[in-house]
């Protein structure tokens, strides 16, 4: 499995505050993804990156931004957190897009009060 870590693993914050989640990988995978998982929705793609400084929007990108300045790190930022962004966030990586499976990190549980 790809070495993927996410930090923090748990976070409680208040509405209107900025939040940044970090994903770090040690596999030198080119492609990285941010998903959110909510009851009744499965996993939904927020943003993805196909290289350093190359990112694009996914299905549910409103209210989120990302940055990737190094191959190993992919940051997800909630500029002004809302209660609807309470969720579990998963980072994933993939060596070759479309070549096979994505490898997932352990997740970050975010609660916005």
């Amino acid at each position, binding site marked *: *499995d790809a070495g*993927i870590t996410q930090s923090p693993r748990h976070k409680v914050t208040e509405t209107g505050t900025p939040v940044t989640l970090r994903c770090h990988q040690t596999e030198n995978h080119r*492609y990285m*993804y941010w998903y959110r998982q909510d009851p*009744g*929705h*499965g*996993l*939904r*793609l927020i943003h*993805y990156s*196909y290289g350093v400084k190359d990112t*694009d929007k*996914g*299905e549910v990108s409103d209210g989120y931004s990302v940055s990737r300045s190094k191959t190993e790190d992919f940051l997800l930022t909630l500029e002004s957190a809302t209660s609807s962004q309470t969720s579990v966030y*998963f980072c*994933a990586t993939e060596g070759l*897009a*479309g*070549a*096979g*499976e*994505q*490898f*997932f*990190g*352990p*997740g970050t549980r975010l609660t916005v009060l």
Partner: protein
Amino acid sequence: DQQVKQNSPSLSVQEGRISILNCDYTNSMFDYFLWYKKYPAEGPTFLISISSIKDKNEDGRFTVFLNKSAKHLSLHIVPSQPGDSAVYFCAARIGAGSYQLTFGKGTKLSVIP
């Protein structure tokens, strides 16, 4: 509009028997399908995949069947073990080089000893 559907939220099976998890899709452009397993408080882990040029793929106790005409796939686990108790997600993607996985909502499998 949900493109990947897992209509059974939960399934209970006796240890040693067969578990059959089902998945339907609506987008005929999907040509690669994956199953992920997820334990509580962990990220999803890849289980098995199948390309649309095949109708069956086997890996140990796990077999995935694809019926393209019916836009249906199923995951068979034989024999089921208590450690198989988890949430199973079906996912699909369009074409080689495609970035986005579309996930179903998941089916919670409970294997009863």
